[in-house]
Every structure is written in structure tokens, then in C-alpha cells.
């Protein structure tokens, strides 16, 4: 197989899917309707932890337009499911995984857990009726934080004796680790809080289940990242035969991991639609989303570094306490472990140890959120490196340079302290490019000037060199981690009789631009125009094989599968063309969409003509199947490891505590790029999402487990007005793992940016004796931190 080398690949082609999405032509779940549909209205728990003593549905059931009201206990008795909601990542053999049904039965364990379901003719009617259901609770002590869970004074599940769900160690050589710390000149220890975040995709989640009472089929439209996984899980939890289930993810308006799950509402819609013989739908409201969709992060981290006198790392020891929330969702327990391998970052660390304890709390379950474990890891090591730099007395750039894997030189397939083999890397030039573009020495001079002048607006400069692990994933590696599925991806490419091309993609877009990127790959591989390619996806009836989109895997796995399928198409076409041109296949050259006999430039055959010949099948080589259609299921041999250096510049008003992010420079390296426009968009969005964690976003809970900011009124998602024009640049270190040389870029920005921003804030405040600040660095928190450091 040859890499894509010329043509449209590598050019900033405008996205094909945008006109229909921007004009409202693209249909999201909420835009799709079915005759006779009923709306679900969820009665949600108002208590974080309580026994349900009574549910009175009489008034609600009597309201006009209400078709039915079911309590959790009634639904359980109806036998709608054969298994609880799935957790596909049982990280240890003794992991505690309490049964988690779509509705609470006799005990609620987080605010927002579904207690009863109303089915009504209209959405408004469902909301009105849900409000009339009266639930009596007998309160139980709520576990409203990781600290409380660890403390163990109360348990999140009344039938548990502890809140601990699992203990997971990755300590390759404990003695070497202890020795590293014993022999070190410098040691530092830091504790960080990864606050809970509420994912806020532009399109909330929603479902529409359409039954076929006589055929026995059911179609579920869901705003999901994972239609294929959902199909398997709907079968496994409801007992509906898998071949009777069709899942469609229509236009999906963002996911960020929050649509990578199997949710109560999805199972309720499918089973109630089948039960009632009518379509059943639901769209979460924005405030409901704070409870009905999983949250991100939720970790307490302790990181210790040991170094020699020059700041050369000798050891790194990490412990994480992770907040599972009330239940294990699809990959809840595995999220912190996805970061486990990256706590040594881009650095050569001889001795490494990581342990993680998972805890249940009476809060909304956590699960994947852009970066999933890796932003947390990157934050810890990159903050710790700055703290070590202060301890050693060198600059943040220098401490990094002294410790880069490969000594800052290009490398391939290098084994890391975290037991991984990085496919490629070249960190030194990446850092140089970032410092250069940021005009680093000028920034330092301006910072010094303000410090000397006692300016109330102090300048802070923050660095972060991140690496991430993505392109999930080699199936064997996932098996080794007890993950419940493989990591391959499927792609199919077929010529239609008229010379147009249909691509069937197993990976499913929810905003990434698959239709554009796949068209570009296919166009160059087959020598055709991208406009002649259509990409079919996100419907299990059209694209039956796939493992969907998460973990920055689409291009590095799914895109590679499609490129490989194109190669197979060309090879079959070569045999047909050779047969029809009466030439030896080895004598044919394929370029610009045509086969030409070497040395006879006038003997040529366009691939579309070959495709038509394959369709008519009038004159094919003996034994060859008609049609030009090939498929590939690609299982990567390794992950991919994109990296980059980000520089954040902040101005902190030391009087009010306000932080203003004035400049952001990002030099990323995601290997070869298919569409630089899409790459840049991913980098921008990713950076803002990480900056948001650093400065704005936090799901805040009171001691009773109530979320204090479940709407956009108080949960502050930044807008374009809050972020500077981001300066991007790229170095290119192709992956050695896949033939396209590509790496993922969907999560990279988020993985690099929170640490860069907080490093900058701490840098600005270092003259005031401030060494750390919790995220988000709100004005009040910055002001109070300065006050405390000064007193």
C-alpha cells in the first residue's frame, strides 16, 4: 500500500457537510417524527440518596393526553430488560459493579435518577404530567464528594460496606521506584483536583424508537457517537434479538464523549415502544442534561517527582482517587486508567508507579469526556514539571528540554516508562517552534518589566508539552486491559455503475467532517473528484460493521481502513483492465484515475470504465466476481501518539483576581494531515474546551449532592468573546503505525491547554508566593489565593 501523496489530501478543502447542517437541512433526532409518537417525560429524583417509600401517579395518569405512567418498580415487574445497563470495562476481577437499571426501583442514588416515566401525546403534556407525580422519599446520608466517599462515613449504596469500587495498580518495579526517591536530590509532591465537568454538546441527547409490532423490528434513532456499540448493548440488555434492531445516529451535534454511552432513556424508548406498539421519543432539556447525561473528570490526583541535582527525572509516583458517580456506565471505571500510561508525559523517567482507587458517590455517573483520562494525566505531569523547575531553579522550558524522551531528537518506536511504545516523536524542535512563535524571550522581558514596576496587571506565561495516546485501538491491547470490545474499524468502497463512488464508513461522525475527509482520501486514491464520492454512515442497516467514534480513532483506524479498501479496489480494477486491454497486470500503471500500459501511453482505460465493465460482467477474467467493491477491517498494531507544545499568556489583575487569556500559541504534531482546515478546527475547539476547565467550568455540588449550576446561567461555557485568536502551527512527525502516517487530533487541544493556562496563572502570581491554584481559576479564587499567600 502506498501513502496518499498528492491531489486534494493536505489541502484545506471546505467541508462538504456544512451547507446542509448550516441551513437546517441536516436532520437531528429531534427533527425526525413518526406517526403516533408518544413523548416520554422523566420523573427524576430530587434527592441524592434516599429510599423511595411511595410513588403516586394517579393525578398524572388522569391528565389529558397522558397515555401511561410507569414507576420504576412497575417497569421492573414488566420484565422489559434482561440485564442492567452495561459496563464494558471491568477493570479488575473484584471490581464492584452494582446493578444499574434504567429506572430506580426502591433506592435513588443521585439527583436526576429516573423514578417514573410518563408517556403523553405531546412534549409539554409529558412535562406537565411528570410534575404531578408525587414521590415520597426517606432520605439516606449522601456521599457528595470523593473526599466523603474515601472517608466512608456513609455509603453511596445502602447495601455496600465501602464506597471503594476498585484498586488498580501499574507499578512495574516498586523497589526501583522507592530507590529513585531515596536517591533523589530534588523531590516535589503536588495535589490537584480535576473538577467535574458537564459536557455541553450543542445538540442535547435525544431518542426516537419506532417499533414494528407485526415485523418485530425496532428502529432507534439516537443522538449517539456509538450506533454499532449501542445495537449490541440494546440486544444484550433488552433481549430483543440483535438482528431485529436497527440503530440510526442521524446528524449528531457534538458529543465530546457524552454520547459514548448506553443510557436509560435509550433502553426505555426501545422497550416501551415495543411494549405499547407506538413510537416513543424524548429529547433532554438543557438543565436535564446536567443529570441525565454523564459528566467528565472528577479526580483527586497526587503526583510526586524525583530528580537529580540538574532536574533530570529519576522517578514519578502517582495516585488518583476517581469519582465514579453513583454507577458504572459504559467505560466509567476505565477512564482514569486511560491516563495511567501518560503520567510520565513526554519525559524519560526511569522509575514509574501509578495507582488508582475508584469510588462511588451519590452524584451523576462520570465517564468519557474529551480526552478521557489523558487531559487529567497531562495536567498533573505538566503542572508538576513547572513546580520541579522552581525547585531546581531552572526555567520551565529548560526543565522540559532536559527530560524529553529521545533527548529531544526524532525517534521511532520508543518504549516509555508507562509500558507503551510511542510510534514516533520529536519534541525538541516542537518546543523550539512554539517558543519562537510565542516570542518567548520578549514575553519574559515584558513580564520582568511589570514585576519590577509592581504593575497590578501581572503577565504569566505557561508552557505545556503534551503527548496523547489515541487511535483506539489495537484489539489485543484492549483485551489486555479487560476492555469489552476490540478496536478495529471497518470501511467499504464501491464503484457504482455510473462511475460514482460510495464509501461505507464504520466510524460515525458527530461533527468531525468524516464525509469530507473520507472523500478526500478516496479521491486521491482512485484519481477522482471528491464530489464524486458519497460517504454512508451512522445507520446499522447501511453500515453494519463498525466500532464508532471516540478516542481520536476515526482517521487513524477508520480512515486507514478506507484507504486500504481503495487499494484493494485499484488492485481488482488492475486485473480487469489488464484483461480487457490484453496486457500483463504488472505492466499497468495507475495514475490520475486511469490505467495505462507502460510504454504505450495511448493504451489507457479510466477506472470508471473498468467499474462499468465490472458491473456488466460481460468480460471479466475467469472466476472473477462482478462489481468493484472492496472492504477492509483494519486492526491497528499500535496506538498513535500525537504531541505538541502550547504556550498560554495571561494577564492577571491582582486587585480583582481576573485572569485574561491574552494569547495562545499551539504547535501541534498529528503526523500527516488529510485536511488542515479540519485539523485546525479540532485544535481550536479542543484548546477552548481545556481552557474552559482551567478558567470557567465546574459542576458544583452542595453537601447534599445537589448540583448548584445545572444550566447555562451558572455553568459557564466560554464563548468566542472570552478567548483570543488562537495561533496554530504544526510540525509533522508521521506515525509509523499506519500507512497514512496519521495520528488523531480530536482531543489533543484539550489535553494540552488546561495545564498551559494554569501554569501561566501560577507563573504570573509567583512573585506573590502563589505556587498553585485550583481549577477553575475564577476571579474570586485567584483573589483569595493571593490574599492567603500574602498573609
Amino acid at each position: 500500500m502506498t501513502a496518499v501523496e498528492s491531489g486534494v489530501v493536505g489541502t484545506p478543502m471546505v467541508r462538504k457537510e456544512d451547507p446542509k447542517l448550516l441551513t437546517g437541512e441536516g436532520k437531528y433526532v429531534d427533527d425526525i417524527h413518526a406517526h403516533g409518537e408518544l413523548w416520554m417525560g422523566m420523573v427524576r429524583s430530587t434527592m441524592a440518596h434516599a429510599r423511595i417509600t411511595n410513588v403516586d401517579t394517579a393525578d398524572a395518569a388522569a391528565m389529558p393526553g397522558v397515555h401511561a405512567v410507569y414507576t420504576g418498580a412497575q417497569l421492573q415487574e414488566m420484565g422489559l430488560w434482561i440485564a442492567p445497563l452495561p459496563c464494558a470495562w471491568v477493570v479488575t476481577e473484584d471490581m464492584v459493579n452494582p446493578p444499574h437499571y434504567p429506572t430506580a426501583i426502591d433506592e435513588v442514588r443521585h439527583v436526576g435518577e429516573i423514578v417514573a416515566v410518563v408517556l403523553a401525546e405531546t412534549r409539554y403534556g409529558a412535562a406537565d404530567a411528570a410534575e404531578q407525580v408525587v414521590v415520597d422519599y426517606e432520605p439516606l446520608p449522601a456521599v457528595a464528594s470523593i473526599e466523603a466517599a474515601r472517608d466512608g462515613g456513609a455509603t453511596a449504596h445502602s447495601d455496600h460496606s465501602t464506597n471503594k469500587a476498585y484498586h488498580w495498580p501499574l507499578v512495574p518495579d516498586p523497589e526501583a521506584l522507592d530507590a529513585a526517591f531515596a536517591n533523589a536530590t530534588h523531590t516535589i509532591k503536588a495535589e490537584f483536583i480535576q473538577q467535574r465537568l458537564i459536557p455541553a454538546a450543542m445538540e442535547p441527547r435525544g431518542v426516537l424508537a419506532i417499533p414494528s409490532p407485526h415485523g418485530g423490528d425496532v428502529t432507534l434513532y439516537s443522538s449517539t457517537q456509538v450506533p454499532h456499540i449501542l445495537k449490541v448493548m440494546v440486544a444484550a440488555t433488552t433481549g430483543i434479538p440483535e438482528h431485529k434492531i436497527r440503530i440510526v445516529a442521524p446528524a449528531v451535534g457534538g458529543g465530546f464523549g457524552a454520547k459514548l454511552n448506553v443510557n436509560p432513556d435509550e433502553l426505555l424508548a426501545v422497550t416501551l415502544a415495543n411494549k405499547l406498539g407506538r413510537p416513543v421519543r424524548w429529547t433532554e432539556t438543557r438543565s436535564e442534561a446536567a443529570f441525565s447525561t454523564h459528566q467528565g473528570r472528577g479526580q483527586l490526583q497526587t503526583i510526586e517527582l524525583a530528580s537529580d541535582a540538574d532536574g533530570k527525572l529519576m522517578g514519578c509516583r502517582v495516585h488518583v482517587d476517581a469519582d465514579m458517580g453513583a454507577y458504572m456506565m459504559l467505560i466509567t471505571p476505565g477512564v482514569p486508567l486511560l491516563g495511567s500510561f501518560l503520567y510520565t508525559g513526554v519525559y524519560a523517567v526511569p522509575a514509574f508507579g501509578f495507582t488508582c482507587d475508584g469510588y462511588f458517590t451519590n452524584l451523576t455517573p462520570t465517564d468519557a469526556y474529551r480526552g478521557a483520562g489523558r487531559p487529567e494525566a497531562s495536567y498533573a505531569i505538566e503542572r508538576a514539571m513547572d513546580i520541579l523547575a522552581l525547585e531546581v531553579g531552572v526555567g520551565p522550558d529548560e526543565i522540559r528540554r532536559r527530560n524529553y524522551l529521545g533527548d529531544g531528537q526524532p525517534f521511532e518506536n520508543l518504549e516509555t516508562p508507562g509500558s507503551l511504545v510511542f510510534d514516533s516523536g520529536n519534541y525538541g524542535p516542537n518546543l523550539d517552534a512554539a517558543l519562537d512563535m510565542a516570542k518567548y524571550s520578549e514575553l519574559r522581558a515584558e513580564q520582568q518589566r511589570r514585576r519590577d514596576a509592581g504593575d497590578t496587571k501581572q503577565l504569566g506565561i505557561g508552557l505545556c508539552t503534551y503527548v496523547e495516546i489515541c487511535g483506539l485501538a489495537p484489539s489485543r491491547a484492549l483485551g489486555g486491559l479487560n476492555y469489552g470490545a476490540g478496536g478495529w474499524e471497518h470501511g467499504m468502497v464501491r464503484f457504482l455503475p455510473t462511475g460514482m463512488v460510495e464509501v461505507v464508513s464504520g466510524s460515525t461522525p458527530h461533527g468531525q467532517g468524516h464525509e469530507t475527509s473520507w472523500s478526500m482520501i478516496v479521491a486521491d486514491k482512485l484519481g477522482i473528484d471528491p464530489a464524486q464520492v458519497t460517504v454512508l454512515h451512522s445507520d446499522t442497516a447501511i453500515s453494519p460493521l463498525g466500532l464508532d467514534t471516540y478516542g481520536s480513532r476515526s482517521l487513524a483506524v477508520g480512515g486507514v481502513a478506507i484507504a486500504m479498501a481503495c487499494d484493494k479496489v485499484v488492485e481488482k480494477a488492475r486485473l480487469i483492465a489488464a484483461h480487457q486491454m490484453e496486457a500483463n497486470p504488472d505492466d499497468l500503471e495507475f495514475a490520475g484515475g486511469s490505467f495505462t500500459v507502460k510504454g504505450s501511453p495511448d493504451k489507457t482505460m479510466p477506472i470508471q470504465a473498468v467499474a462499468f465493465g465490472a458491473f456488466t460482467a460481460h468480460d471479466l477474467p475467469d472466476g472473477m466476481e462482478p462489481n468493484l467493491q472492496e472492504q477492509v477491517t483494519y486492526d491497528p498494531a499500535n496506538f498513535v501518539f500525537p504531541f505538541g507544545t502550547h504556550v498560554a499568556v495571561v494577564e492577571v489583575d491582582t486587585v480583582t483576581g481576573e485572569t485574561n487569556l491574552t494569547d495562545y500559541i499551539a504547535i501541534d504534531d498529528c503526523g500527516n494531515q488529510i485536511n488542515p482546515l479540519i485539523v485546525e478546527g479540532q485544535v481550536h475547539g479542543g484548546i477552548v474546551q481545556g481552557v474552559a476547565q482551567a478558567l470557567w467550568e465546574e459542576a458544583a455540588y452542595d453537601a447534599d449532592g445537589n448540583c448548584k449550576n445545572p444550566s447555562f446561567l451558572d455553568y459557564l461555557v466560554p464563548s468566542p468573546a472570552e478567548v483570543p485568536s488562537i495561533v496554530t502551527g504544526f510540525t509533522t512527525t508521521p506515525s509509523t503505525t499506519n500507512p497514512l502516517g496519521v495520528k488523531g487530533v480530536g482531543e489533543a487541544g484539550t489535553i494540552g491547554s488546561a495545564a498551559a493556562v494554569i501554569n501561566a496563572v501560577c507563573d504570573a502570581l509567583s512573585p506573590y508566593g502563589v505556587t498553585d491554584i485550583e481549577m477553575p481559576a475564577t476571579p474570586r479564587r485567584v483573589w483569595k489565593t493571593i490574599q492567603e499567600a500574602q498573609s
Partner: protein
Amino acid sequence: MIPASFDYVEADSAAAAIAALAQHGDEAKLLAGGHSLIPLMKFRLAAPSVLVDIGRISDLSYINDGGDHVAIGALTRHRAVETSDMLASEAPLLKHVASQVGDPSVRHRGTIGGSLAHGDPASDLPAALLALNGSMVAQGPNGERVIPAREFFTGFLETALAADEMLTEIRIPKAAGAGWSYQKFNRRAQDWAIVGVAAVHNGSTGVALVNMGATPIVANSVESALAGGASIADAAAVAADGTEPPEDLNADAEYRSHLARVLVERALTEAQS
């Protein structure tokens, strides 16, 4: 985010709106731009049984020269205030404050009368009216009356308007050449102020505070101190005296009081420069 059911009445004149209010009493709410009321209804924090839509009363949208004052129709949208040439010369503070409300879509829909009648202590425009010593014209079944801005905000989301009265006009004393400042402190451009300060210096100095109590408030301590000849720094130091600042995720009372002192100093410095 799904409001409870309600009846909808469209009023084509102020008189019709007032008649509808008289008919439906406390159960009715006027709907102007809807940018305060509709969110409350979606959260089901407000559930009026009748909405009287006054958004199509075209003769209440104007910015006129009233002689010694500028007269602004209650249904004038923030965008019109923000772009008014007359206000630019006669009351630039108000023009500027209107530009700080929400985001462009809010400013193209929301109205000055709706914002003032809502009486939100965190809103920008009430503080401007207080600092400018403006007044409100209320129309009821028995005719018109003029309410000084400083007597208008009576409680949390409560005003001096009677249940059957409608705010029809806002009057701003002309003050060409006066010094002014609006200091809005928030975490995102589109948000309400965590604390805000409006100041007008025109011989005497008017100062009002945003989000430092249950209502939009005049900074009485500051005004008294200045009237007594205090320096800017000394006047700013008492900015939080006598206030009862709210507490929320953004700020506790201590931090709000600190911000009030800092922002008053910045506002006075700018207004008097």
C-alpha cells in the same frame, strides 16, 4: 426548559395592555422582549396564567428630545439605545450600558422598559437610570404618573409599578459633557455583572451599584462621602457600607464588597478625569 401552559393575549396599544392587566390581575404578566420572563417560565420559576404581549405596540419605541430630557419609549430595544446619536451626546452612559447588556441577540430583542420593569438587581440598565437620576412614566387605568428612578426599585424583582400599571416611557435628564463611567465585572462577556458600578459626574456625582443587594441600589455611602468632600479613594472605601450583597458561585459577600470598592474607585477616577 418547558414552560407550563398559559393563555396569550396580544395588546395593540398601551390602553389595551392595561385593560388586560386589569382584567386578569396578578395572574397576568406583560411580555415585551421576553429575555427575562421567558427563561423564568422555562425554568418554571414563573408560571403566569396569562401573557399579555406588548411587543407589537409600535408607538412605544422611540428616542425623542423632551426638552430638558431624552424620552425613551419603553419598548425601545437595547440595540436602538446602543446606537442612538442623541444619547451619544446627551447621555453617553446609557448608550454604553445598553451595549453591555447580554449579547447581540439579546440586545436586538430585549427592551429598555422590560429590563427596568423586571427590576433585576444584576441588570445593567437600572444602575444607569439610578446614577443618571432618570425617571419612569407609568400608565394605569387612571392615567399617567412619573416615578423617580430612585423610588422605582422596591424589592427583589419588585418595582413601584402597580399590578395594573405599565411602564411606558423612560426619561433621562440631558447631561451633555458630564463625566461618566460604567464598570462591569463579569466572567464572560454575555453574563450579568458579578458587580457593576455606574457613575455620572456633573457637578455632583451619582453612583449606583449592580448586584450588591436585593434591588439595584444607589451607592448612598459613596455619594454622601463625595458630597462631604471626600477623596475618590476615601469615597470608594465605603462603597460596600450599608449593602447586603448576595452570595453565589461567582462571589461571596466579602469578594463582592471588595469588588464594589475597587470598581467604584475605577469608576470615579474615570468619571472625574
